[in-house]
């Protein structure tokens, strides 16, 4: 669009035609106040705070609804404008309770800020304020009605942003009130966006309300530990008896890939961290019972036993299971530990997507993966399988709002009806399990169409394929339904479309990282086959070159007594794969976890682990976006998996300098000064990195391994300074190793929904209370209206 020139307070401003005046002002640093205006939501013109003077217009105009036009001359501050805004604040405060000292929003309240700016704190009215009782709408959403200033942001974000439409306005005039559309409660996705977007303290969070004041918390911007989308979440952290307590998760830092968005898990699902059943002490099985022990005793025992098995039966008698939720540094370290220290390739994890097939198909090709940000801007999207609304809430948000704001075309191919159909240009049903045939058909195998009945005939499929081929810059997103050879078919199809890119959907926070870091029995980091010579072989020395055992093979091996020891880090194979626990009773089992899972209950040694909010590192989301994980605070009694791996290696008599290439220097605690306390960006680290001074002074410092990852893993050589500054950095698969064909049956989708999240979800009070509430929702006839 052509640019338009206007003048704001004497400053020349140039902006694209169609820009709203309020945004044009913002672009040159002139803030026009508003309550109801919110970028990317429909315009309201309701709060009248953004009144400005536009030359030649008799009345003041709302900057939020005025589109700039050539030559427009605007004044944003004058006695008249100041008075208009002051009187608006006076009117809002007329019925607004002045309970700021106890209000959750106190200190973070836009109305407070406006009152300070416009000085309308003195009331002209002596009549009593209108009062209404507070309401609880769901386990996590409370509404303090008198505080509401009717900006309608909550109504819009729920409807337009989330496509949930759970909120509306009741009554009219001064009796107008925001209310759930279902009688007295919310029937919604419990995302809490309404709370986040509320400019005052009207909507408050059940998890956070009345717990603290904003300035008493430390705000740590990190990456969410739940699904594979990788939202940035800001944790509000307070000191507590155990070191720290997370009291809030919110979306204060809107710079992340998720922008305004956060789902229920990112917002409330941090409370597993202080669950009463959290493991707080190492335990050793004595006389058949797990008995508390000291760390030293535990490490010594593990070191002794692993060394014994290794000497007696060789490394191949030990099986290692990694995690989808440990950091990249931990996953990398774990497989390096397995290969270099234990001398085994028996390492696997719970696979939820076929990344090796994707890497194999993409290696040597141009960069063909899309980032999460790309999904928001793509002109067209093809989604095969999966239900993002449940399994990838951010992805669903990106798609939905791309369609709403940019008019993107969404083509759906799915076996089930899914909510995103409402945004779709076309919906094509496939028989369950036939999604792979779609890939083959798209790649040009017309015979595959015969298997694709559903609601579309052969001509319909051909028409769809023709349409897709004409969509430049198409993003193709596929779920775990597409595996193995079907992935390469899809890549073949992608290569034939101008600018098309791919997203492969996995299920957990660092599933992609686990795959990229080589938690495979036959693949090193970067999908490098173990049998082929590589930089890793050169760097690490002796790496076993024969393929190790997959998880089911390890189980089988243990059953026959060949596998003598297990090292399970942040995983629960017994619970997840319904493995007979007896299999584990015959070997020496070490489990690192937060809770006594089914697998941990069978262990000989259980080590209490820190979760992602209690340690530093990086995560790679399902798109391949690399982001930092920042430690919210130090917690006593547990250790990060990283540290435990190093300690076990040391206990086995291994020189840890061979494992973690940390530099020489004075040992000091980097935990807090690494910027966790300084707010959104890791400023210390950014400063040090910019000067080449970043120290890695301890073997427990994951940054030392991050160095190695960035040096050795193809695609991870992104600018470190951007990463540390809190920006997402897209990694590429185009230089990755050739991968290897995997047995598609090894992929088991997590099938979590909006309110469940593997082990973490089982121990989250907030998630459980919401699930219970949804189960117990009363029939509509039983509800008494307020």
């Amino acid at each position, binding site marked *: 669009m052509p640019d338009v020139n206007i003048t704001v307070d004497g400053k020349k401003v140039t902006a694209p035609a169609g820009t709203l005046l309020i945004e044009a002002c913002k672009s040159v640093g002139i803030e026009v106040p508003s309550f109801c205006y919110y970028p990317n939501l429909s315009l309201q013109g309701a709060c*009248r705070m953004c009144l400005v003077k536009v030359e030649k217009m008799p009345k003041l105009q709302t900057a939020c609804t005025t589109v700039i036009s050539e030559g427009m001359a605007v004044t944003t501050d004058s006695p008249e404008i100041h008075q208009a805004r002051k009187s608006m604040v006076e*009117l809002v405060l007329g019925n607004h309770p002045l309970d700021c000292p106890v209000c959750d929003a106190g200190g973070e309240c836009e109305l407070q800020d406006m009152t300070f700016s416009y000085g309308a704190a003195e009331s002209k009215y002596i009549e009593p304020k209108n009062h209404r009782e507070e309401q609880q709408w769901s386990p996590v959403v409370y509404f303090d009605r008198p505080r509401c200033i009717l900006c309608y942001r909550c109504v819009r974000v729920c409807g337009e942003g989330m496509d949930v439409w759970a909120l509306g306005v009741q009554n*009219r*005039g001064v009796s107008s009130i925001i209310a759930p559309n279902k009688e007295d409660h919310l029937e919604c996705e419990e995302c809490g966006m309404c709370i986040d977007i509320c400019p005052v303290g009207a909507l408050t969070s059940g998890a956070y309300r009345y717990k603290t004041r904003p300035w008493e918390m430390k705000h740590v911007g990190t990456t969410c530990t739940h699904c594979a989308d990788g939202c940035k979440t800001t944790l509000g952290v307070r000191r507590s008896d155990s070191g720290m307590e997370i009291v809030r998760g919110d979306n204060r830092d809107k710079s992340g890939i998720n922008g305004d968005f956060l789902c229920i898990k990112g917002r409330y699902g941090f409370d597993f961290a202080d669950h009463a059943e959290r493991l707080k002490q190492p335990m050793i099985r004595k006389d058949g019972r797990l008995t508390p022990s000291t760390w030293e005793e535990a490490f010594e025992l593990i070191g002794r036993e692993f060394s014994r098995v290794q000497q007696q039966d060789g490394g191949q008698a030990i099986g290692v299971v990694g995690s989808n939720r440990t950091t990249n540094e931990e996953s990398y370290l774990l497989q390096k530990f397995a290969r270099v220290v234990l001398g085994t390739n028996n390492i696997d994890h719970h696979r939820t997507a076929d990344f090796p097939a994707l890497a194999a198909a993409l290696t040597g090709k141009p960069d063909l993966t899309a980032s999460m940000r790309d999904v928001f801007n793509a002109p067209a999207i093809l989604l095969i399988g999966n239900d993002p609304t449940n399994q990838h809430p951010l992805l669903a948000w990106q798609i939905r709002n791309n369609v709403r704001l940019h008019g993107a075309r969404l083509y759906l191919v799915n076996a089930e009806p899914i909510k995103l159909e409402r945004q779709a240009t076309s919906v094509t049903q496939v028989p369950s399990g036939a999604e792979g045939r779609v890939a083959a058909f798209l790649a040009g195998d017309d015979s595959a169409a015969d298997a694709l009945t559903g609601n579309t005939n052969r001509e319909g499929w051909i028409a769809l394929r023709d349409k897709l081929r004409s969509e430049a810059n198409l993003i193709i997103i596929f779920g775990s339904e597409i595996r193995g050879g079907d992935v390469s078919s899809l890549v073949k199809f992608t290569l034939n479309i101008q600018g098309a890119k791919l997203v492969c959907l996995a299920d957990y926070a660092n599933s992609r990282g686990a795959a990229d870091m080589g938690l495979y029995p036959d693949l090193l980091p970067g999908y490098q086959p173990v049998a082929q010579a590589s930089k890793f072989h050169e760097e690490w020395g002796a790496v076993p070159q024969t393929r190790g055992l997959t998880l089911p093979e390890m189980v089988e091996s243990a059953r026959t007594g060949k596998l003598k020891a297990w090292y399970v880090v942040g995983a629960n194979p017994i619970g997840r794969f319904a493995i007979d626990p007896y299999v584990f009773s015959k070997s020496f089992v070490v489990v690192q976890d937060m809770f006594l899972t089914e697998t941990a209950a069978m262990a000989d040694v259980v080590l209490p682990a820190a979760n992602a909010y209690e340690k530093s590192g990086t995560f790679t989301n399902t798109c391949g976006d690399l982001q930092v994980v920042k430690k919210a605070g130090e917690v006593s009694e547990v250790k990060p998996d990283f540290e435990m791996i190093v300690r076990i290696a040391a206990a086995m008599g291994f020189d840890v300098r061979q494992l973690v290439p940390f530099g020489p220097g004075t040992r000091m605690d980097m935990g807090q000064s690494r910027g966790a306390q300084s707010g959104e960006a890791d400023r210390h680290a950014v400063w040090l990195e910019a000067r080449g001074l970043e120290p890695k002074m301890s073997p427990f410092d994951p940054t030392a391994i991050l160095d190695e990852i960035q040096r050795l893993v193809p695609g991870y050589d992104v600018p470190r300074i951007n990463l540390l500054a809190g920006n997402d950095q897209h990694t590429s698969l185009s230089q990755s190793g050739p991968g290897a064909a995997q047995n598609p049956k090894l992929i088991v989708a997590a099938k979590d929904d909006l309110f469940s999240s593997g082990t973490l979800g089982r121990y989250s009070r907030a998630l459980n209370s919401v699930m219970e509430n949804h189960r117990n929702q009363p029939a509509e006839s039983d509800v008494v209206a307020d």
Partner: protein
Amino acid sequence: MADLVSHPDEVKVVSKRFGKGATNLDRYLELDGYKAVQKALAMGPDAIINEVKNSGLRGRGGAGFSTGMKWSFVPKQSPKPKYVLCNGDESEPGTCKDRLIFEHDPHAVIEGVVIAGLSVGSHVGYIYVRGEYRYLSEIMQKAIRDAYARGFLGKNIFGSGYDFDVYWHGGAGAYEVGEESALMESLEGKRGIPRIRPPFPAVVGLWGGPTIINNAETLANVPHIIMGGAEWYAGLGPPKNGGTRLFCLSGHLSRPGVYELPMGYNLKKMIYEVAGGIPNGRKLKAVVPGGASTPVLTADEVDVGMDFDSLAKAGSMLGSGGVVVLDDATCMVKFALRTIKFYQHESCGWCIPCREGTDWLKKTLARFHAGAGLKKDIDNIYYLAENMLGRTFCPLGDAAAMPTMAFVKKFRKEFEDHLEGKPCPYEPLGRTMELPVLAH
């Protein structure tokens, strides 16, 4: 059913068929009914718009915008259907003219809607009738049914090959919906809240299609313009204020009622001659000239012509033609309170200044009139109204602010007379006031 009144000065155009049984279609045809539509069918769109433009017809809903101009803004080509909307959500206190049209001459409205449709190439019209006018809905619906039965509506009207459908729609009781964009929201089944403009209805209106929206009286005038010609119609009023006007004279008058008088007719004459003056030997205190939202005129200011431009010069507005006359036993504080109660009740609540402002005005005025007023309240009331004026989302806020400011400015002494716990000085004048507010 309201009694009809008459006066020799009346020039009957819109009210020509009042009391003549024109709700009956045969009778309506005898009274030259449906001739205008047939003439318009032969004229073609541009000629219709020109005729209406030249007639000087201005919107009778209150704003007084040129009707022909409004129609000419509708784009000729539109991918979406075009609509004609008759705004019969007559709710302004003091105004009761549209209801007489619906009651006595419903076919004239239908005819006006069809002609408006012809002028812009629309094929659908809606007649939106105020919810409280329930007793009119059967009359209006029957008229539509009858017109369909004769082939005047529906497919191929009057054998012309042109299709035109008309639907009746009842409101649910909201003054705000008289605002044209709120009316469209209401018609679409949403909350009656105004839309952001631009775009204007002529470009993006009902269901996103270009829409003509006119007051019922405006549309009822159209057939007469088509039949009588622009020149004749324009000559009925002063320059740029074409035609006649239904004036709704209410309040303290000997012969209140709806009179059709030429635009520009003198207000003083209207009060003392047409409506028979003030009864019970009382004197005139004030006049609200164009419905409750227009600034009040004092007894000294009533020698003024009742047209858009003269009243604007006098610091008030012609509005919707609702003339409310108050005698000297009226308490102006109570009248201000009654007026603001209406706007407080009818504010849709969308924007801060109107939602909160009308409520605080009502609370303050109620306390003030009850004898608990403070001296600073008088300035506060003015301050509140002044800060609403021109800053609300739609004109409802202005409609509440303008009269309030005029009451304080012109009758400040009456406010002062209520101070220091004094009882209302006008109550002892021996009358429980039946406040002259017709609507609500």
